[in-house]
């Protein structure tokens, strides 16, 4: 991912409608993002497109995802 693409993704993560997502995603980008595998990056990009309440519900709820890369990213988000 080039710098511009990362920065665009970053903006779309640190300026959400919900504070809970701003906090979680900022921490995730600062602490976890660099360590993601390529497929995990793609999975995260997909999750980041979710509506705010759906995304938050996923992070704080107990639901698991069937896609292994999305599941791995979700586990990391939950730790942030």
């Amino acid at each position, binding site marked *: 991912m080039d710098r511009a693409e990362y920065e665009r993704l970053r903006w779309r993560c640190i300026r959400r409608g919900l504070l809970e997502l701003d906090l979680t995603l900022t921490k995730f980008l600062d602490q976890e993002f660099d360590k993601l595998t390529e497929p995990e990056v793609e999975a995260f990009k997909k999750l980041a497109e979710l509506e*705010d309440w759906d995304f938050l519900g996923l992070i704080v709820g107990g639901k698991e995802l069937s896609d292994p890369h999305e599941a791995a990213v979700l586990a990391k988000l939950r730790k942030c």
Partner: protein
Amino acid sequence: MTIPVHKYDVVIVGAGGAGLRAALQVSEAGLKTAVLSKVFPTRSHTVAAQGGVAASLGNVTEDNWHWHMYDTVKGSDWLGDQDAIEFMVKKANEVVVELEHFGMPFDRLDSGKIYQRPFGGHSQNYGEKPVNRSCAAADRTGHAMLHAMYQRNVKANTQFFVEWMALDLIRDEDGDVLGVTAMEMETGEVHIFHAKATIFATGGAGRIYYSSTNAFINTGDGVGMAARAGIPLEDMEFWQFHPTGVAGAGVLITEGVRGEGGILRNASGERFMERYAPNLKDLASRDVVSRSMVTEINEGRGCGPDKDHVLLDITHLSPETIMKRLPGIREISIQFAGVDPIKAPIPVVPTCHYQMGGIPTNYKGQVIVPKGDEKSVPVGGFYAAGECACASVHGANRLGTNSLLDLLVFGKSSGESVVEDLKGNPRAHKPLPANAADVSLARIARLDNQKNGESVHEVRLAMQRTMQKHAGVFRFNDLLKAGVEEIKKVAERAKTTEIKDKSKVWNTARTEALELDNLIEVAKATMISAEARKESRGAHVRDDALDTAETPAGRDDKNWLKHTLWYSEGNRLDYKPVNLQPMSADVESIALAKRTY
């Protein structure tokens, strides 16, 4: 350097509830309309609103606009303008029914009518008993509202400029507003949006405080832009604090937790609210609970290594009750406080929630400023609505569910005023001043060339800590006085912030630096207005405002029943009278009284 110019009839800044409602009004009237937003519209902070929208439909319990008006005036601690309040409560049913027609999925009664639930401060028969006045779409009212209005705007051919940040207001020699400059984030280029009418709907600036329930996006962009362009800001000392934000994170823990038996405790485990509110205890009104918490912390009975918070305890409730009655609270607490509330109490502090003041407007959404001997003269071509504006319907304290009503009513009325003006008096665009983009270009050039400056993060943190310490939920004369000097120093530091990344494309560091310029204006306005107001009223509570027969609960109507106007230039203060006269002869002025619940 040539700056690209986009010509529209109307440019709207902000695509939350107020911006989308305003856009609909002007687009459907056939005006060519651009809406600028830092984010995709349905990710505006309106999405966070869960409570509902107030309207005296009377679908569940008997209700009428007179009662709603009384509640709102009383809630405002009589600082609200009664003409604007009458206008808002009378329009409530209309805007809610319209929204229903736009496809908003309101909760319904078996009869098919919109379901309504009770909410704090709203009453039947002038304070007699609670009323069901809030119309909601489950706990996603704001979300559903944004979606319904966005879809309709797309059909109406509103043109959205998403991920654009408005930078500065363009005014000509007559003081008329001719649009804005804005930065396209994808390219970093500055453009001009030249318009016959400009509507600000940029939301609040709750991020001036260290502890805030507001999303990071709430940087008061419109409020800061207006201030830099010479428009005074009204009643900026009034901020609503929510008693239970998670300490450190700010994430809101709903009042429902105390409703279900949650208890606030200090460092020694004492249920301290028994001392402050022997009857209602932990369920006393928001401001009473918040002040009690701050008193505990200030007197050294706070919890944690820094003694800077208190604890919200529900460990005495059964896990089944917590799971059943307070769904989501356990998860939110584990995620954001690092605490499982079944096993341990949640650390909480009073947290900034809502900005009552803002850009001064009348009930038509026109921005109004003093001119000569007149106190309220409309600024040509300039309108504002929603949290960034001060109509003023919330006065010194807002009632829950009146914020969504505010953004619908005044979003619509500002749009109607624009349509009336542009259709009634068709005209060409006024010519742009030659230097229309100079201020914005200079701000960006300063950032590009700055050396040996501080980071935006450091200065923003200094601002937030200063505001939290000196102009928090409970205010003290010496702290406010010192706070004025402190915030002026921070404002000086903000002038020399430095960003390491100078690239143009998607430079989020630069955007955050530009946001800080807006936050700083709001922070100065708040501190200086708060220091000057020597009384307690609504959300502005001073420890030295004494409760006497003449000044009940510290409210001094003889000297302070007036709106503050703060000017950025020279930090000058002016005042204007509160409009106690309603809009029509349908209702008499609601007479001043002590605010008790």
